[in-house]
């Protein structure tokens, strides 16, 4: 194997691998990428046995062949090369010579034959999807994914095509839930929703972020997902299991509804939460006539209070919330105002754009 490639191109390929390769693993080869030189170009493959990305790049191939190399070290090397071009050449015993301008590296690799094979998902019915839409949907749900590994069903986003040509994505950690519904027409041929794991979703987000306008295809087969865009293929294993019945925990409409200026609320939560006890981010949200009052107290520090003027008539109420949960929602809300629906101290708070529930977040109170 020998090829010559633009350093930036190789850097891009290795960057895509960084989030996937596993450094702490009993299989050392999973810390490597598989570099394959074909006629006309190279592919760089990263695979952690659950998620695999194959990245194609133009290169001047002198001799075809394949080898695996440390994803991290070669990435670091490529970022520090003196020249815009770099040549990789496989030597005996899977050593690889990396040369660029005046610099030479001789790197220990491992045999390509030992690299685990990616599952072939050619049967997946691919649907063309808008990269920007998919990106938006990921951003509006990812924060609610559970990081509690014992609740692995919740360690991903539920992807549920609707009959209307729309797709719903839902994430919940058992305390809060985020739901977004957007146009993603096409037949995914799914009987029910599937759960996309957090790590795969984050990689997908990273790939979409590179070029959201690129032509993207998404499909599902067996228990895997397949994502393609020009020069790139990604496969990932889905989470196997039953996502909870999320519809049941989304209230129709709260008893008390207020329209709140988004930025004001976000900033206010941020400053008041500074005084919440023990990093719990617990704040109290009170509604009184034409006022929303946010307070927090910490036995070691003191108290904080902020008042937002808004239109409200009705009974006064105070409900505890984790400010972080509310801030996560507001941070991805695009409208200037947000509709905040409240029940009682034990009922969820609901946030959505005024008159638009296509992005809805449900947040359970805290006992404070």
């Amino acid at each position, binding site marked *: 194997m020998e090829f010559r490639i633009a350093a930036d191109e190789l850097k891009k390929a290795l960057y895509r691998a960084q989030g996937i390769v596993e450094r702490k693993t009993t299989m050392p080869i999973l810390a490597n990428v598989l570099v394959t030189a074909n006629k006309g170009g190279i592919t760089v493959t990263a695979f952690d046995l659950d998620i695999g990305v194959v990245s194609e790049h133009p290169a001047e191939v002198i001799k075809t062949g394949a080898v695996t190399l440390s994803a991290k070290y070669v990435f670091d090397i490529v970022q520090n090369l003196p020249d815009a071009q770099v040549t990789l050449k496989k030597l005996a015993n899977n050593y690889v010579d990396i040369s660029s301008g005046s610099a030479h590296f001789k790197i220990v690799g491992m045999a390509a034959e030992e690299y685990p094979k990616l599952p072939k998902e050619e049967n997946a019915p691919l649907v063309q999807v808008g990269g920007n839409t998919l990106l938006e949907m990921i951003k509006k749900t990812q924060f609610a994914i559970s990081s509690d590994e014992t609740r692995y069903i919740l360690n991903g986003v539920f992807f549920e095509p609707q009959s209307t040509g729309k797709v719903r994505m839902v994430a919940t950690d058992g*305390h809060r839930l985020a739901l977004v519904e957007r146009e993603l027409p096409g037949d995914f041929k799914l009987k029910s929703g599937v759960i996309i794991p957090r790590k795969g979703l984050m990689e997908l987000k990273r790939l979409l972020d590179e070029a959201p306008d690129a032509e993207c295809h998404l499909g599902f087969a067996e228990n895997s997902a397949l994502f393609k865009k020009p020069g790139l293929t990604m496969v990932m294993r889905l989470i196997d299991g039953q996502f909870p019945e999320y519809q049941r925990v989304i209230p129709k409409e709260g008893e008390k509804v207020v329209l709140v200026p988004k930025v004001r609320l976000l900033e206010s939560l941020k400053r008041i939460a500074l005084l919440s006890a023990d990093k719990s981010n617990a704040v109290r949200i009170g509604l009184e006539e034409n006022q929303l009052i946010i307070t927090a107290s910490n036995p070691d520090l003191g108290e904080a209070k902020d008042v937002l003027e808004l239109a409200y008539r009705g009974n006064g109420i105070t409900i*505890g919330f984790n400010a972080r949960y509310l801030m996560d929602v507001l941070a991805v809300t695009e409208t200037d105002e947000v509709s905040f629906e409240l029940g009682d101290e034990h009922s969820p708070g609901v946030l959505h754009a005024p008159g638009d529930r296509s992005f809805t977040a449900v947040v*359970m109170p*805290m*006992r404070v």
Partner: protein
Amino acid sequence: MRAIIHVDMDAFYASVEQRDNPALRGKPLIVGGHAQRGVVVAASYEVRPFGVRSAMPMARATKAAPHALVVKPRFAAYAEASEQVFAIFERYTPLIEPLSLDEAFLDVTASVGLFGTPADIARRIRKEIADELNLPASAGVATVKFVAKIASDLAKPNGQREVRAEETVAFLAGLPVSRLWGVGPKTEEALRLAGLKTIGDVAARDLDWLEDRLGSSGRHLWELSQGIDTREVVPDRAAKSVGAEDTFDEDLVGVDALKPHVHAQALRVARRLRRAALKGRVVQLKLKFADFTLITRRTTLREATDDGQTLYRAALELLDKSHQGKPLRLTGVSVQLDEEPPQLGLFPAAAPRTAKLNAALDKIAERFGSKAITTADIAGSEATDSAEHRSERPVDKGGPKD
């Protein structure tokens, strides 16, 4: 100004034995384990003039008082009596801080309007304990905890003493410095060398002088000598942890011998958690080896629990890893309570089946006593009940040694 009562049962285990067996009444009585290797668990007032004290080796105690009657401890009976005593406390205030099976602080500040002066309340509590349970108790009444505790000690046996706010400094002045919380033999020696023998000597010095010589504990001692003690009565509900431990009659070796004790402790902790509607995630096992070295090991459960079997499984895992096959004189199980304000969940979790079982067990225990129903491995053994302890807020650390 607070009204604090410290109630302390007199020679509790011995009094229970004398109550339940008329042949023991008025006699020098030692409650203790093995004649050679055990320790004295309790000594009746009749045997105390001979120098017999609890925790003394049995061999020494029987030598000092060869005429004394000796009975084996019946922990289940003491735990039962203890629950009855605490039930009487609960008639007067919810602010009860148990220090052990036979001792508690009561904050009766808010009860005065209902039941009379703090001294009246103490008298009523002692009378009800005497009438209903036929057991003697002593009480100290003061405005702060440590003074109430000293007062009850001075009132023993079967008496009570009140120290009013304005009398506090004078009351303390004549007492030896060793009466102050946090003064052990080392500090006592340091104070003696500085010419301070009584609490009054400490109070007479100024703060800077004490701080120069004793560092930060100088301020603490000076405050105590002035009768200043800001610690509140912390009921289980506000405690940081709930625990149970017991010292064995004789040292035990091996998991099989220790298991029933750890199991009983776990069940007891869980019962107290449920009674206070609390749960905890961090389980701690305390082991004291025969050579008195003390180790604690902890583990964090996936979710907070009030289930005794769950606590037992966690404690047993810790025990397996840490007992080292060495002889042990004490085990203790405790649970650190969840402190975070609880976040409510979206998906109503079905109450685990254990919750139903525990509710049924609690009802049986409530009606027929805590030994009416238990698990097979600890049935009929002395491990059924164990001494209780509770950890307090950090500021309360270094309390008095009895």
